């Protein structure tokens, strides 16, 4: 890589960002869009029946479904937030580098 002395390599961070982007995208398209939405099976209430114990089962399933949806959305949100965080850190390192370089210039 560019500079072995550095403790922050923006190229490696970019690679990690790409990875997060593809994972988040896969979660959204392959799971959320494909299964939870667009008449996917995870958008349908299972035919638990009527009467009897079906109400409680439906209620439990609904809660399970909602929580799992939220948890998967949470992963997407986390990945998206990571990307933003990494971009910000990249910027701050770049700014620090620029400042350092300017200082070096002045010394020269």
């Amino acid at each position, binding site marked *: *890589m560019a500079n072995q002395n550095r*403790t*922050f*390599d923006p*190229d*490696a*961070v970019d*690679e*990690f960002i790409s*990875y997060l982007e593809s*994972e988040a995208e*896969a979660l959204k398209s392959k*799971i*959320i869009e494909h*299964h939870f*939405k667009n*008449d996917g*099976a*995870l*958008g*349908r*209430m*299972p*035919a*638990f*029946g*009527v*009467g*009897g*114990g*079906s*109400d*409680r*089962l*439906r*209620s*439990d399933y*609904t*809660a*399970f*479904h*909602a*929580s*799992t949806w*939220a*948890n*998967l*959305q*949470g*992963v*997407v*949100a*986390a*990945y*998206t*937030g*990571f990307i*933003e*965080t990494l971009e910000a*850190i990249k910027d701050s390192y770049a700014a620090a580098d620029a400042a350092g370089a300017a200082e070096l210039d002045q010394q020269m």
Partner: protein
Amino acid sequence: MNQYGSEPPPGLENERGQRETTLLMTGTSTSDSAIRRDPCSNAECPNYDPAPMEAVWTEFMSPVAYGGQVIHKGPAPGTTQPDESRFEEIILALRPDGIGAHAVETIRKTWSAVVEDRLESMPGRLMSALAELSGFWVGEDFDRFAEEVEQVRDSLYDTIDEIDTAANELKVFEDRVRALQGSGAGVPFPAARVWKASSGVVQGPKIHVRPVWSSGGDCDKSRSEGDNWEALGLPRDSGDELRALVYERFGYYTERGMDGSAAWDQAVSDYSAVQLPLVGHWSTTMSAVAENHNLGIVDLRDQLVDAQEAPSLEAGPRPLPESAADAILEPLPELDPGPLPQMPPLDGLDRFTPPTQQAVPEFPSPRADWSAADYGSTGGYDGGNAADWDRSAMDSSSWNRPASDDLSGGLASGGLPSGGGLASGGFGGATGGSGGFGPPSGAGSQAGGMGGAFGATPGAAGNGRGGATARPANARPGSARPGGAGAPGARGAGSDEGEHDRETWLTEDSDVWGIVAEDDDPYA
């Protein structure tokens, strides 16, 4: 901190609203919102309301374990059942088109596929990528970032576990439902409830029949006598058979010198005792079979409720890493409830078939010297259950007349004054060609073949003696109607006895045979 798990899932509210609709439409439940049929117009009829079995069966059949399920009607011996077209109509209402997409198996397998194809590998990949990154980023910033990544990894593991657990729980539920609903081998359909309004047997049987989802607000009871017998699982011509026996008995007395009126009264009186076992036969067997059958369905439903109460579906809210706080989340889409079970269209009895005909207990031969007491004390058929609902159950020895030493005397006493045919096999003719007068099947031990079997093999018109069992052809005389002379008003006008508690049907007067006129049908 967590903005996902703490909100009430919007699906729940919708689901509740949906449920109320379901109850209204199916008449299922519990509540007064259910559709109820009117009770029978006869206040004594116990078939008050068919709604309970309708609700039970709706609950039993409404869960869909797997797609493409073909539902067959299971065997229900001894009960009135819908034919195929009616059965399918009811199934289609309870399982509307499109419900297969909501089969538990379909959805459960999708959850599993999401884990196997996507989620399972995510935590590992995430940690590999982080390990890679750690080679190029060192410091406190990285450590803080790595902690957040690990938090997401843990959340992924938890989510995977929760989905796996839920899928397993659903699989268990699915398997139980599949087994309870017959595993494709047939599901039992509720037996029509049957009630005999009067205690008389021959005289206007007045059978109330009420299958589930029957049309009209009342029991079906305006059918012919033959239909009524059939509803009891007895041969259509049972009444004729019994009448013929009395006629012949009457002839037996007159040939011994009794005057017509006394002979008739005695003949009627004799057989009046015999009818009691037949009533017992019906009430203990026929109604018990239907009742047991339906109780079996209630039990299946109860097991289904147990299955519905078993699954443990849980997913806890996950704390999100700090970095994620600003992320935009999609709102939870509403779960598609799918097509709801509908109330099946109501229909009459046309597409129901009566129970398979059963052998009827033997009645004592009209040409034997016997007294009513001999038969009144036999106790009749001692009940039975669905498993016994077969021919052999009817051959109870309790129907066999105690060996009598008078039989041969009776037969030897001379020809029939009525001029009735003695030819063996002639009995069928005596009963208007109804045929099916089977020979007694259980009377082998009795001298001279006591007791005529009563319709053991109905429907063999013209067959004279039926032929259920081998029996010497000469053991029982054929007979024709008693001669005209003595028959006292035997076919008088319809009785008005109606459904009042007549303990016997032959004791009172000669018009008990009366054919009930449609117009003043005492059914009520």
